[in-house]
């Protein structure tokens, strides 16, 4: 099992394209996860028992939906969401189509991460804000988010890395991407060279994301 440099050069455009597709899918689904998952996670937290917007009905319904989506294996979600994908992007194949399923999977994942991050905040700080007469919106904007931001950056890092792994399955709907390349060439065609190259790319990618996340999280923390 060796590395055939010639073969790598030959397929380099393919690898680059796949890398671009991976970035595209992760970018879109991460953006959607943050835009929808962040508010969702905040709602899950503030409607919890003993908190300032306690609401068992909302907490119960949202919690149930989040758990439900999270319990569906991604590969099934990918297929099950084909009608929704068709509706949203007018196509069921390609990276854009795969991004729909990735987003749907990432939203509840990130929402739970947000909820957990917010739970780490000392309840006393929230209480002090209530005592000062702050509005719920002020508490969210000026207490919860700033106090959790370092932990949220760690959560975003975790979400990106999970998305890298999930996106490998996007090949099922022709989504492409690095992971898909590894499966198609390495797994189905026994092309060890491509498999090794793609896996190395993925390893490097994940390492860089993790390092960047750790560094950012530390840099913005004022504690």
């Amino acid at each position, binding site marked *: 099992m060796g590395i055939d440099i010639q073969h790598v050069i030959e397929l380099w455009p393919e690898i680059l394209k796949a890398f671009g597709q991976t970035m595209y899918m992760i970018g879109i689904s991460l953006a959607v996860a943050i835009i929808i998952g962040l508010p969702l996670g905040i709602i899950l937290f503030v409607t919890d028992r003993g908190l300032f917007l306690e609401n068992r009905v909302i907490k119960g319904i949202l919690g149930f939906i989040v758990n439900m989506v999270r319990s569906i294996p991604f590969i099934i979600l990918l297929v099950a969401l084909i009608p929704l994908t068709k509706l949203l992007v007018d196509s069921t194949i390609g990276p854009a189509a795969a991004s729909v399923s990735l987003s749907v999977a990432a939203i509840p994942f990130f929402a739970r991460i947000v909820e957990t991050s917010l739970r780490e905040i000392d309840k006393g700080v929230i*209480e002090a804000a*209530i*005592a000062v007469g702050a509005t719920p919106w002020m508490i969210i904007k*000026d207490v919860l988010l700033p106090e959790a931001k370092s932990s949220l950056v760690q959560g975003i890092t975790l979400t990106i890395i999970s998305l890298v792994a999930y996106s490998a399955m996007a090949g099922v709907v022709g989504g492409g991407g690095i992971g898909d390349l590894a499966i198609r060439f390495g797994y189905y065609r026994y092309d060890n060279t491509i498999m090794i190259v793609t896996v190395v790319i993925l390893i490097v990618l994940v390492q860089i994301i993790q390092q960047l996340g750790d560094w950012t999280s530390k840099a913005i*923390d004022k504690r």
Partner: protein
Amino acid sequence: MIRINDLSKEYETKKGSVIGVDRVNLTINEGEVFGIVGYSGAGKSSLLRCINLLERPTSGKIEVNGLDLTKLRGEQLRKARLKIGMIFQHFYLISQKTVAENIAFALKAADTPKEKIATRVLELLEMVGLTDKKDVYPAQLSGGQKQRVGIARALANNPSVLLCDEATSALDPNTTLSILRLLKKINRELNITIVLITHEMNVVKEICDRMAVMQDGRVVEEGMVYDIFSNPQADLTKEFISSVVSFEVPQSILDQVTGRIVKVLFKGNVAGEGVISDMVQNFDVRGNFLHGSIEYIQEVPLGLFLMEIQGQPENITRAITYMEGRGAQVEVVRSGH
């Protein structure tokens, strides 16, 4: 003025309901510093947190400046809280915001116009003596400095009441003293009513005008701090007082003492009058101090002495009557042998 009327607070736990505060009635006058003392679990923290409805009482009424807070909810309650400041044992500052931003947060809650926030923040920082720490994050401050920020935040919207939840319990004795002095200054200069809870009698002695002692959710004693220190009624109160004024004399010393042992208490200015030296001069007795101290409660002296008096029994009795005539309270602890 704060009026607490038949207030109870029960907590639901897995083992059933637990009573935190049990039918408490208290009136705290405008401009006074009121101390609530008790061991942990006595319900003092629950009571304090009911005053600004951080905890909603199970029954009873809380009136602050004539407004029944238990009737308020949501936006109305939030507005009422703007006028009730609170500080905490662990400060609870927003760690990711600077000192100035932490104070500005409170001002924003009251919809203070942007251009006024900066000047008000500086004013408050000046009051608590932290102008140089304006742009520093809480992590870089000492405990006492953090509490000063907490005080500035609590005072931001000119409250009429300041609630202090064990505000000095996490601080060393020197810092405690400086925070207490600041609270006293705020009380005097801004005429803010202060309600504080503590388990340290020294805190009460230092700044409170009146106090209440709590046990098992109930108020067991209430009154002027001086009166309670000089004449505690409940056993628990006596226990607390003894943490400040102790009369523990080793048994080996007591065994050597042959005369009559008396406890003498001087209130107010009598403490400085030299009653004991006059007594020794006028009667044919000898006095021997075993223990004693003069405590200053709100700058009024309270003298407590444990002494042995030797001499003829009738002379001792006359000497005691003399001291009583001069305003001392005398209690014979042991009649001598």
